[in-house]
C-alpha cells in the first residue's frame, strides 16, 4: 500500500510501496504539480521500475517547465534500485 501526501510549496511525501499496482495512483497525484518539487522518500520501503517510471515522468515534466525536482531521504535498498538504473547520477538525490 502506498501513502501519498501532497503538502504546500511542492512538498510531497511517499510512504509504503510504490509498485506497478500503485503507479497509476501515484502518477495521478503528482501530475497536477507544476512548481519546484521535493519528494520525501524516507517512508518509502519499496520501489520497482513502475514506480521509477512515475518519478522520471514527473522529473521530465517539471524539468521542461524549468522547475527543480529533488528526492530526499531514500532508504538504502531504494537508493540501490536508483543506482542500478543509473539514475543516482541523473536525478537530484539527497
Amino acid at each position: 500500500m502506498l501513502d501519498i501526501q501532497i503538502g504546500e510549496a511542492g512538498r510531497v511525501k511517499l510512504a509504503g510501496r510504490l509498485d506497478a499496482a500503485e503507479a497509476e495512483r501515484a502518477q495521478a497525484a503528482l501530475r497536477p504539480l507544476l512548481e519546484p518539487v521535493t519528494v520525501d522518500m524516507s517512508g518509502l520501503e519499496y520501489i520497482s521500475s513502475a514506480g521509477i517510471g512515475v518519478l522520471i515522468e514527473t522529473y521530465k515534466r517539471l524539468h521542461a517547465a524549468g522547475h527543480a525536482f529533488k528526492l530526499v531521504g531514500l532508504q538504502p535498498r531504494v537508493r540501490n534500485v536508483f543506482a542500478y538504473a543509473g539514475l543516482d547520477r541523473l536525478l537530484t538525490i539527497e
Partner: protein
Amino acid sequence: MPERRFPRAVGSLDAIFAFVHQFVADRGLDPGLTYDLDVIVEELFTNLVKYGRDGRHEILVALEADPVAVTLVLKDFDVEGFDLTQARPVDTTAPLDARRPGGLGIHLVKRIADDVRYEYVDRVSTITVTKRIGP
C-alpha cells in the same frame, strides 16, 4: 518447491509479495532478501501480463532454496513465446531525455539476479531466476 498460481493482473502483486515473504520466513532466510525477490518477481510477472495478452491462464510462481541460492520460477501457460531475457539493453549512462521507455524492469532483474533463463516448450514460457544467498 512451494508454488501458487496468480491471476494475470497487476492486482495480484500483493498476494505474490505475501507468498514470497512467507517463503522467506518459513525457510528462515535473511529478511533483507525479500526486497530483491520482490523486485525480481514483480518485474517478471508484470512483463508476462503486459506481453502475454493472449494468455488466459493464471501464472504459476514457485520458489525453492538451498544453502547457496534461491530459485524463482514463473510459468505462463498456453501463450506465444516471448524471451524477456533478450530485451533491448538499457543504456544507464544516457541522459533521461534520450532514454526510450521500456526495458528497465528486465534490466533491474539482470542486475539483481545471478542467473536468468528463459525456456519455451509446448506453448509454456518458463523463466528461471537464481539469486545467490550463500557465502
